[in-house]
């Protein structure tokens, strides 16, 4: 039993990453109708920015936790203005293909500069070390990851569901023309949403840097699972993606104990089952 508790906790850590990434995807899909395949690459970029900041400019982890998402967000701004804005009226497939292509380009650039072995990135001094919880040794950094991601997820949820800005955003996705008639600059809103969504990915990347080796493939290892999370949670559902992210992290953690060989597939089995019973996902609305 104590061993199981430990595994649940570890599942929660992974779930935090799923939640943060799928949240960004859900927001972007909800507002822009774009399936942002480049999310994983931007997450990788966040991790690399953290590493570069320390390696080349001596900027520490805490500063990069703010700076990296800003840079990734700015990059997102450029992507949206330059490329994505032309695709909103077209089929989902075009957005998916474009962002998939972007992923290949971004990953290829990092691969050619840094190889695939990856770069080591140490956890910040204040969070190094581990705490003995009795049933397991938990590295302090992992505890921080759970806290940080929960705070961020909650913050985004409140922003979108409970503030007037969020209300405008939601209205903008329902009926952009009408909202524009009220004097709201909808295209700018959409651009900022995309930037914000990918900034979340960048933030997750910085959080992941001390846990995983920072390498060009770290995004593509994760992105498929995150897409499954979004599908299970219900496309575009904010709360759904957060809860499903955490839940699936735990399911995956348990699979690693009882049948480790299947730990990479279990998420997709769950996805298939959910789609059979609820085609719109757990929290999605049927249209």
């Amino acid at each position, binding site marked *: 039993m104590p*061993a199981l508790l430990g595994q649940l906790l*570890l599942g929660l850590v992974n779930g935090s990453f799923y939640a943060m990434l799928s949240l960004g995807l859900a927001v972007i899909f909800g507002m822009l109708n774009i399936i942002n395949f480049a999310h994983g690459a931007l997450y990788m970029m966040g991790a690399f920015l953290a590493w570069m900041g320390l390696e080349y400019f001596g900027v520490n982890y805490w500063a990069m936790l703010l700076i990296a998402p800003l840079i990734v967000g700015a990059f997102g701004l450029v992507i949206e203005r330059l490329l994505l804005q032309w695709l909103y009226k077209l089929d989902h497939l075009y957005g998916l293909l474009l962002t998939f292509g972007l992923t290949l380009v971004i990953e290829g650039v990092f*691969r050619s500069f840094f190889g695939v072995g990856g770069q*080591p990135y140490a956890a910040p001094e204040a969070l190094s070390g581990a705490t003995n919880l009795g049933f397991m040794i938990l590295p302090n*950094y992992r505890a921080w990851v759970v806290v940080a991601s929960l705070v961020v997820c909650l913050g985004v949820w409140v922003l979108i569901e409970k503030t007037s800005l969020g209300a405008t955003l939601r209205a903008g996705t329902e009926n952009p023309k009408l909202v524009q008639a009220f004097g709201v600059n909808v295209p700018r809103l959409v651009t900022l949403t995309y930037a914000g969504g990918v900034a979340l990915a960048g933030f997750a990347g910085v959080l992941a840097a001390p*846990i995983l080796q920072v390498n060009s493939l770290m995004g593509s290892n994760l992105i498929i699972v995150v897409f499954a999370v979004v599908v299970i949670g219900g496309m575009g559902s904010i709360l759904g993606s957060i809860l499903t992210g955490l839940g699936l992290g735990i399911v995956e953690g348990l699979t690693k*104990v009882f049948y*480790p060989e299947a730990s990479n597939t279990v998420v997709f089995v769950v996805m298939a089952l959910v789609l059979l019973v609820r085609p719109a996902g757990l929290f999605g609305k049927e249209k």
Partner: protein
Amino acid sequence: MKTTLKTLALASVLACGSFGAQAQISGDTIKIGIITDMSSVYADIDGAGGVEAIRMAIADAKGMAAGKKIELVFADHQNKADVAASKAREWFDTQGLDLLIGGTNSGTSLAMAKVAAEKKKPFISIGAGTSRLTNEECTPYTIHYAYDTVALANGTGAAVTKAGGKSWFFLTADYAFGTSLQADTSAVVTKSGGQVLGAVKHPLNASDFSSFLLQAQSSKAQILGLANAGGDTINAVKAANEFGITKTMKLAGLLMFINDVHSLGLKTTEGMYLTDSWYWNQSPEARAWARRFFEKMKRMPSSLQAADYSAVSHYLKAVEAIKSDDGDKVVAQMKATPINDFYTKGTIRKEDGRGVHDMFLLQVKSAKESTEPWDYFKVVTRIAGDDAFTKLADSKCPLVKK
């Protein structure tokens, strides 16, 4: 890549026109192909560096063998056996490939070995670890050049067990290579007086290892054997440090390369044992070649990249000697001639195609002991080839007559 292929396609069409001019060299060129992981987890240890090493071998032969031009093609198998096999088949069927080099990943090498045997062309596996290539699945055309899981087990497994690491737990990559490595190491551990307490299998590219590591820790074993490779080993070692597992268990990397140590840094890897077929700092000749490689790639070569060079040179010398690229004749010539270069001094066994040469048990230096960039290893012992590799008497290869 695409243009290379186009040029090659054109070249083979032109070659067809001059068919029959030279009976001994098929297609009027010596065509060498390497299929390896160019873009994923194993791309650092072989990949573009491996291709470059082969280019160096061809350049050192002045681009010619037996009076004919040498051409090189390469492809990325994406760690998929079916991709590797179909690419190999395409090259043999449409491009008149004369020599196939198998890069990293055992699953892909097993698949390519079958295709090469069917086409009666030599197949040299460099990067694959599985000992099945020269045992259950041996063919008259397969040469397993650099290392295998048996040699790794005989190196690291035996050394660590004899040094007092009596109880083992394995963290195993769930595919052909991991299973092979775990089985071979278990056998050596048991034979050396140790015992295996258990194992957990993880999927390839498992990124998060914490859960598997906690399971390993609860086994109370002294040694955690990492029967995986590349990015998986790196992330496992990193997480083991983070979770304090290195305080209660010692890690034994069963297949680690210099690139892995480079990625992790000496602080996390100090004191780890590993077994390898070659180290750039092992001799003056090795150093000289490694410098040349470094100039081009800006990183030191792994043992596999050195072996890529050595294997292709050995092949080209064989072609030069018999003035033919006929599969059976070249393989016979390669097996009859000892290998003697900066990479190794050894032989290729006639019966099963196993390359037999010395292996090195290496230990990772501490940051203090390391005096220059890439100075990472101490050579602990040199393991004689006959002790490292499967003995003929123990071979499971059906071609070995007993």
